[in-house]
């Protein structure tokens, strides 16, 4: 009865969250005195998982699963859970994992706790800490079912190295036809996504117009960060909706969140509060964001940001 973890990949390569959920699965396996089995789908080389505590890898290669489909992926994971007689299943909080986890929960009749931020505080009863009320509170949630599914909040547990080797075997689940067909994918492949980013640089209406985003992108480039924006900016069409972060946009849980010219409406703060360190740059010292941030600069973004870019370049060159 190992712990089973779904280690996600893209184009044959693990996503960063895959290694984080593997680390998390290892922590539970230690608590339960058992081993970790990972499921991979169309991954070229799964050997990295051994370094994050995985004992055994089930490699699925299946042309039907070439592009993500929630039903097919949930079917594959369900059959792996049954094969291993796993009692705990660990997934990430990526868009894809959040899509398939409820289907998997129905298939396994398993209780599912999403947005979990720590290893279980107890395994009997099985209790996990998760965020609730859009980051305004934490909930201790007890999972009552025989099989338990845990969705780990991105960037909450971190990577924990455990040197070791994972044994590998091929696994061929039977997959039924997907009811949903992907027609086309529109994704910038050269940019860090908000979900994966350690650092997010975000800007608001204080930037006055879309033509001024060059410095935001340059700051993000220097830091290896993703770019994001406030709701008014996406509503005005200055930036694409996919960059909108906040309660009705994308959630952010980065290590560092830099807010430029964003006042800090409660809906915005709710969406980004899970970020560990927040920096605000705003001309208005009364902006609510100054109450929510760790570090602040009261100043004109058009003066502060270019200077910050130059200083960061010098800093990076020294490193």
């Amino acid at each position, binding site marked *: 009865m190992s712990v089973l973890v779904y280690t996600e990949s893209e184009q044959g390569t693990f996503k960063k969250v895959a290694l984080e959920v593997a680390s998390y699965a290892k922590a539970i396996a230690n608590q339960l005195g058992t081993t970790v089995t990972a499921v991979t789908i169309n991954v070229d080389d799964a050997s990295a998982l051994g370094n994050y505590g995985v004992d055994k890898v089930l490699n699925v290669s299946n042309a039907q699963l070439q592009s993500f489909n929630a039903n097919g992926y949930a079917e594959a994971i369900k059959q792996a859970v049954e094969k291993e007689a796993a009692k705990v299943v660990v997934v990430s909080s990526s868009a894809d994992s959040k899509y398939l986890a409820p289907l998997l929960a129905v298939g396994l009749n398993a209780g*599912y706790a999403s947005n979990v931020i720590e290893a279980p505080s107890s395994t009997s009863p099985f209790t996990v800490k998760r965020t609730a009320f859009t980051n305004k509170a934490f909930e201790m949630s007890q999972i009552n079912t025989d099989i338990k599914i845990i969705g780990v909040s991105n960037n909450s547990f971190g990577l924990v190295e455990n040197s070791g080797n994972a044994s590998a075997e091929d696994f061929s689940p039977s997959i039924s036809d997907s009811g949903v067909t992907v027609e086309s994918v529109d994704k910038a492949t050269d940019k860090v996504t908000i979900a994966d980013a350690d650092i997010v640089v975000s800007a608001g209406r204080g930037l006055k117009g879309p033509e001024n985003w060059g410095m935001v992108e340059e700051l993000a480039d220097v830091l290896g960060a993703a770019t994001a924006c406030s709701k008014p900016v996406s509503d005005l069409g200055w930036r694409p909706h996919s960059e909108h972060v906040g309660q009705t946009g994308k959630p952010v849980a980065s290590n560092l969140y830099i807010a430029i010219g964003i006042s800090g409406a409660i809906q915005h703060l709710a969406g980004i509060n899970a970020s560990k360190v927040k920096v605000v740059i705003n001309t208005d010292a009364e902006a609510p964001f100054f109450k929510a941030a760790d570090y602040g600069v009261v100043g004109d973004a058009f003066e502060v940001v270019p200077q910050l870019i130059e200083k960061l370049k010098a800093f990076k060159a020294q490193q």
Partner: protein
Amino acid sequence: MKILVCISHVPDTTSKINFSEGDTKFDTNGVQFVINPNDEFGLTRAMWFKEKQGAHVTVVNVGGAETEPTLRKALAIGADAAIRVNTVALDGFSVAKQLANVVKEGGYDLVIAGRESIDYNGGMVPGMIAGLTHANFINNCINLEIDGTSVKATREIDGGKETVSTVLPLVIGGQKGLVEESDLRIPNMRGIMMARQKPLTVAEPIDVSAETTSVKFEKPTPKGAIKLVSADNLDDLINLLHNEAKVI
């Protein structure tokens, strides 16, 4: 086309979140409840299907009588009928089972639910309804077009979006993008008057158990005061981020 829109009754974003009974219950004292924002985008899209394609729209909620004003608001916005499943919402899975039962009994072609509620943020109800009713499922749906039983939709993915096709019956996890914020409707007086005449059916729940239980809540520890850095001395900021916060 018969559409069911799932409406979660949630505290308004600006509400202070407090807990009572030894931090085991959400304290509803002085809290203003609203239609869950992700559900409101879905409801507004359903209104488009009603007006342009003659769809019949029912709204549904699982909860006690205190949630009825939220359902009446949805009727005032334009839904044709409402159902309240008369039971306490135990957890996401049990709510999904109650809703799946409503879907099966009513024979709905399309079920629209928000991708997550802003209170418990479980993000599981739409997918579970789809799993329980064997319907197709699209999560994080930001565009939805239906012609007969054919569906074209757009799903938000990490770092972009994808276009998908499927057929009814379908469940979507909806969000902003289905309609824009500016398309959301405030009930007018005529809508509010008409809502009083529309049917609000109280349905008895099916017998389900909770797969997860909230045992305790905690509030985040108050954060320390902000450190302000002079705009003339940004080296300080870099130094703090590198040596103190250790994030660059």
